[in-house]
């Protein structure tokens, strides 16, 4: 049986980079993971008579005490998305020094995000603002809110830590092939942008509404 190829027909070979396809499929699974939690949170806030928007039991302004650290973290993650895309440009140009500079800043911003998040968690624990704290136990709305808050921001923080480790590994990479190296940077950058997109939704839902 003969196989007709695109080249035989004089057409350009159109093949998707399997690595990029794989990372996008992985991101799809991550969207489903976070999407389920987001849907549960929205249903709890809008659908429950105890926790609904405007109900006195729900923390007004959510975690307003942590608004400024969260705003700082939003700006930190957005900036890191910008620096990682610049790192990708440098890798595609074959500019290793430029890549190390931009990716170094990205890694530093990732560490900064986790440090601010750690500070925010420490404040919450210090004031007893946990699902099992006395304050929350006296108020079911707060209890539900803090359960969602720690689950979703914690899961996101875990993703940031993984992305940080991935970026740091690339920073120390000695890959001799510029094309292959640029592809590796692209995969890591896609993951890092996804982490940023998740935070873009977490920020208003947990700190502003």
């Amino acid at each position, binding site marked *: 049986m003969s196989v007709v190829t695109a080249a035989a027909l004089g057409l350009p070979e159109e093949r998707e980079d399997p690595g990029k396809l794989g990372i996008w499929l992985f991101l799809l699974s991550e969207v489903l993971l976070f999407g389920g939690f987001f*849907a549960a949170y929205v249903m709890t806030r809008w659908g429950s008579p105890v926790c609904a928007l405007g109900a006195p039991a729900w923390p007004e302004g959510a975690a307003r005490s942590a608004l400024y650290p969260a705003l700082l973290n939003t700006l930190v993650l957005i900036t890191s998305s910008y620096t990682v895309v610049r790192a990708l*440009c440098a890798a595609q140009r074959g500019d290793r020094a430029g890549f190390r500079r931009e990716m170094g800043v990205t890694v530093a911003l990732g560490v900064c995000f986790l440090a601010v998040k750690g500070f925010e968690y420490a404040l919450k624990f210090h004031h007893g603002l946990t699902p099992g704290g006395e304050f929350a136990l006296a108020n079911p709305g707060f209890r539900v809110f803090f359960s969602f808050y720690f689950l979703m921001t914690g899961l996101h923080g875990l993703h940031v830590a993984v992305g940080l480790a991935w970026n740091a590994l690339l920073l120390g990479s000695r890959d001799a092939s510029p094309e292959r190296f640029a592809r590796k940077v692209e995969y890591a950058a896609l993951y890092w942008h996804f982490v940023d997109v998740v935070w873009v939704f977490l920020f208003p839902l947990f700190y502003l509404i």
Partner: protein
Amino acid sequence: MNPKTEPRENLYLSVYLALVGLTVLTVACSAAGFAPILGVTAALSVAGMKAGLIGYYFMHLGEERSLIVGIAAAGVLAVLALALGILPDIALRL
């Protein structure tokens, strides 16, 4: 390596500045003290715009082939299905 990267970097700076501007807008909307439903709609709309900018420009969805765009679209549709699927339950409880 890639001659397109230089002009792209200017575009990325513009996108970055737009993302910072939209973040400020989100906080301003929250501080304006809108009615809850309006506040939620405004905050999620701005978040959607920010996610769109990141996806289209930083993740290069605008330049990807249909298979990758289809995977990204499947994710968005799945989240929308989850959100719309819970609406009847919310409507019955309110």
